C-alpha cells in the first residue's frame, strides 16, 4: 500500500462532472498529510477525453479503464474495473463523489475489496495518522465524527462542499489498465428523458424550492422561472410532493434529497423538521413566506414576509436586470 490518495472521477456527455474537480482539491491536503500523491481514476467506454481533462487537474497520474463493456452502466462491471485500478494503484484512501453514481459504485467496490467506506462526508482530515471524517447523519439532524480504524479506506465526499480545483496543470501521465469483464447480470438498457430536471439537484449550486404555499401544480411556474433565471434547480417540500403538485424527484428532506447549494430559496415552505434536515447546510438560505412565524425564518439568512406569487416574479425581474 502506498500513501497515495486516489480519486474516482465521474463524467457526463459534456465532460467531467464538477464533483471530480472538488475531489482533487479534497485529496490534495490528505495526500500532503500522508506524504503521498494524488492520483485519479476514470472508467467507462471511450473516456479518453475525461482522462485528459483529469490529467490536467494537478494529479500525479491517471489510471483509465476504457472498455466497450462499460458503454452502459452495469454495477458489477464498474466495480470490477475500479477494483482493478485500485489493485494497481494501491492507494491508502480512495475518494468518490457522493453522487448517486458514486455512492452506488463505491459501495459495490468496497465490498468487493473488503474495505471500509464512509458515505457522504463533508470533511476529511488526517489526525494522529488516522483518517477522521465528518458526516451528517439523520439527513443532517446530527453530525457524526467518524474514524477509519486503518488504511486502506474509501470515502464518498458530498458535492458542493469543497471548491473545485481551477488552475490547469501540466498533463500527468495516463496509464491504461486492461480488464476482462464478465457479462454483467444487471445493466442499463435505456435512458428515459425526465423533462423537468434541467439541472441535477444534488450538484446544483442554486436551488429554488416550493412548498404548500404554491397551492397547486401551476404554482410551481414562478418557482421554475426564478430557478431558470438563476441557472438553478427546482426543489420541493414533502407537502407539495404528497399533494401531487410535483414529481417526488424534486423532494428535499430526510425522505428525498439532501442538498447543500450556495443559495437555497424556500418559497411557501413553512420549514418542517424533515425538510430542514435536507437543506440546512446550504451556504445562504432565503425564505419567502406569508407567515412571519414560519420556522423556516429561524434558519434563513434573508427573509421576506410576503406572497410568493408577488415576490418571486419581482425577484426574477431583478435577477434578469442584474444579468
Amino acid at each position, binding site marked *: 500500500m502506498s500513501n497515495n490518495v486516489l480519486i474516482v472521477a465521474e463524467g457526463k456527455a459534456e465532460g467531467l462532472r464538477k464533483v471530480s474537480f472538488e475531489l482533487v482539491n479534497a485529496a490534495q491536503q490528505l495526500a500532503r498529510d500522508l506524504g503521498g500523491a494524488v492520483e485519479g481514476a476514470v472508467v467507462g467506454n471511450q473516456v479518453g477525453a475525461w482522462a485528459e481533462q483529469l490529467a490536467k487537474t494537478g494529479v500525479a497520474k491517471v489510471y483509465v479503464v476504457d472498455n466497450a463493456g462499460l458503454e452502459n*452502466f452495469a*454495477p458489477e462491471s464498474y466495480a470490477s474495473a475500479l477494483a482493478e485500478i485500485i489493485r494497481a494503484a494501491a492507494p491508502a484512501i480512495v475518494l468518490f463523489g457522493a453522487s*448517486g*453514481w458514486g455512492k*452506488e459504485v*463505491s*459501495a*459495490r467496490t*468496497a*465490498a468487493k475489496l473488503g474495505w*471500509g*467506506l464512509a*458515505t457522504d462526508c463533508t470533511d476529511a482530515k488526517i489526525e494522529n495518522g488516522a483518517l477522521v471524517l465528518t458526516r*451528517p*447523519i*439523520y*439527513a*443532517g*439532524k*446530527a*453530525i*457524526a*465524527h*467518524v*474514524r477509519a*480504524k*486503518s488504511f486502506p*479506506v474509501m470515502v464518498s465526499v458530498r458535492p458542493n462542499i469543497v471548491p473545485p480545483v481551477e488552475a490547469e496543470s501540466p498533463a500527468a501521465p495516463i496509464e491504461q489498465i486492461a480488464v476482462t469483464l464478465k457479462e*454483467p*447480470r*444487471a*445493466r442499463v*438498457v435505456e*435512458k428515459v428523458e425526465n423533462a423537468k*430536471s434541467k439541472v*441535477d439537484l*444534488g450538484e446544483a449550486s442554486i436551488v429554488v424550492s416550493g412548498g404548500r404555499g404554491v397551492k397547486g401544480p401551476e404554482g410551481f411556474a414562478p418557482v421554475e422561472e426564478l430557478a431558470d433565471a*438563476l441557472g438553478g*434547480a427546482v426543489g420541493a417540500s414533502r407537502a407539495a410532493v404528497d399533494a401531487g403538485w410535483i414529481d*417526488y*424527484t424534486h*423532494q428535499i428532506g*430526510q*425522505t428525498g434529497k439532501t442538498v447543500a447549494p*450556495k443559495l437555497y430559496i424556500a418559497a411557501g415552505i413553512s420549514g*418542517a423538521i424533515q425538510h430542514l*434536515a435536507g437543506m440546512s*447546510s446550504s*451556504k445562504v*438560505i432565503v425564505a419567502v413566506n406569508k407567515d412571519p412565524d414560519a420556522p423556516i425564518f429561524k434558519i434563513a*439568512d*434573508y*427573509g*421576506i*414576509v410576503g*406572497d410568493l406569487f408577488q415576490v418571486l416574479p*419581482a*425577484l426574477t425581474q*431583478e435577477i434578469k*436586470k442584474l444579468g
Partner: protein
Amino acid sequence: MPYNIVVLLKRVPDTESKITIRDNAVVTEGLNFVLDPYGEYGLEKALQLVEQNGGKVTAVLFGPEEAKETIRKALAVGADEAIHIVDPALEGGDAGTTAQVLAAALKKIPFDMVWAGKQAVDEDNAQVPIRVAELLDLPHVNSIIEFEIGADGKSARCVREVDGERDVMVTILPAILTAQQGLGEVRYPSLKGIMGAKKKPITDWNAAALGIDPSSVGKQGARVEIIGLEPPPARPPGKIIPGDAATAAKELARLLREEAKVI
C-alpha cells in the same frame, strides 16, 4: 409463478422526530420508531408481487429486541413471516459488518429476490444492500421507482432514478433490489392485519444461529467507527427584508449579489 421474496427492514426514528444528542449518542427516550420509509416502499412492492404471483414475503430485520414492535408492523401489513437478527454481540458495527450479518442470514433463506430501501434514514449509509449483493455474488439494482418481472419470470425490468436521470435496467433474478420513493404508495395495516400479525411467526437468530464469529463483525469487525456525535451548528440569525414585494425583491437581489456574493 410464485416468488419467495425477502425484505430487509430497519427500525429508525420517525422523520418528523427531532434528534437530541447527549454524551455523543442519540437520546432514544421518547423517540417514535418506525419502519424505515425506503424499506417500507420495498415491502409494499414485495407484497404486491406476491399478491399477483403467489409466493411468500419474509421480513428480515437486524436490530435490538425493541425492534419486535417494528417487525409486527411489517407482519400487520402483510408479510408472512419474519426473522429477527437480534444479538448484542452483533451490534455496533459499520455498513460492512451489517452487510456481513445480513448476507449470512440470506444464505439460510431461499429467495427469488430481496428488496431493501436505497438507504436507511438514520445513518444514511446507502451501502448495506449493495454490499450484500456483492458478498452473495448477486446482481443489484439501486433506487428503483418502477419494477416489473420479465416474461421469462427469471428477470426484471426496473426504472431507476439517479443523479436527476432515469435509466431502465434489466437484471437477472435472484437480485438485490433497492426501493426509492416513487415506487408506490404504502398501505396501512387493517385491524384484521394487526390481529393476524400476533399469530405470525417471528424467528430470532443470533450470531451462533448465523454461524458468525462475533469478533469479525460488530464493534470489533467495523472498519469505520463513530467517535463523536453532535448537533448541527446553529445558523446565525438572519434579517427580514421590509417593504412591498417589489422593494423587498430588489433589496434581496442586491444583498445576494453584494453581501452574500452568491449570485
